[in-house]
């Protein structure tokens, strides 16, 4: 167990105890919700873990860094940004995936672009967003999000 995990678990346990003291029904309801979301996420967790295993086991770091490493340039960043925008994996699971490609030679810029487009842009949920918020707002939000995600990525690459 590392420090971050201990802190997160500590917060969860403390909040749960507080909730049980205040209102038992609500606390039970929250736990049920947490259990349901966890089970819902589980197959995706396994898929991501296997994907990371395969990626690090089979793809040599030179290959990864050739496509999305320091020397791959703007093309690699745009490529991984588009991949992030199209993919539909829970944001929570994108971080271990990002850590694994960073470990095997991807640049900070590429990893930042991937996470940022993945979380901000939802191609799968875009039709729903258009239906509820209107075409103009939904398209503007997703489009400009892509541009700022790439900007954020390049600034991070320069600083880190």
């Amino acid at each position, binding site marked *: 167990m590392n420090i971050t995990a201990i802190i997160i678990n500590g917060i969860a346990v403390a909040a749960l105890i507080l909730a049980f003291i205040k209102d038992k029904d609500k606390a039970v309801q929250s736990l049920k*919700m947490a259990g349901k979301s966890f089970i819902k996420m589980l197959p*995706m967790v396994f*898929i991501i873990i296997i994907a990371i295993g395969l990626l690090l086991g089979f793809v040599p770091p030179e290959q990864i860094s050739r496509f999305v490493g320091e020397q791959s340039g703007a093309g690699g960043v745009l490529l991984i940004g588009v991949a992030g925008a199209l993919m539909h994996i829970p944001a929570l699971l994108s971080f271990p995936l990002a850590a694994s490609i960073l470990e095997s030679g991807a640049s900070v810029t590429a990893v930042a672009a991937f996470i940022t487009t993945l*979380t901000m842009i*939802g191609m799968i949920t875009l039709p*729903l967003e258009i239906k509820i918020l209107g075409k103009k707002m939904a398209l503007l939000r997703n489009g400009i999000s892509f541009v700022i995600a790439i900007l954020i990525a390049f600034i991070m690459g320069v*600083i880190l």
Partner: protein
Amino acid sequence: MKPGEKQAKQKKKMMRDWLFLGITIVIVVVLLSVFPEKTEPVTSTAQEYFIEMMVILPAVMIIMGLFAVYISDKTVVKHLGKTSGIKGIALAILIGALPTGPLYVAFPMAATLLKKGARVSNIIVFLSAWACIKIPQEMVEFRFLGAEFMFLRLILTVVFVIIMGIIIEKIIKWSKRGNKMDVKRGVN
């Protein structure tokens, strides 16, 4: 969407995820039987990441469950609908960052807020914060990518999201004005 319909849809999505997992496992088994020398690195990496995720994910889920129950849509709409200016933007980020559900849950709230006359810039900031500045995400990012990476990306995201909100508000206002002029001229 009716509740029954929603449930059926969610069930279908779950089935699809498990099916994908099945396919993934078949691929791994085939690959590893063709390249048995890769078994050790693949399983040890997978195991390492599995443990990393399992020590934090349940706790993150509990925190999200608690917030989802304690902070209702009504509370969000009530607080975001009436504040504006810098305070409104700060509130939009804070409420968006609370550990609650996926982005599509926020769309109906955003629509209600717009109808109630909330500023477009605040709604965009709210949606973006909801999508990518969530507290549990930051915790997991901190764990896997380190403090420097997480804090820098957080600060940059906040800054750019606010800029985006202002730009989109300007564009929407400008295009609405254009439409009105069209109507006056009888083009529409």
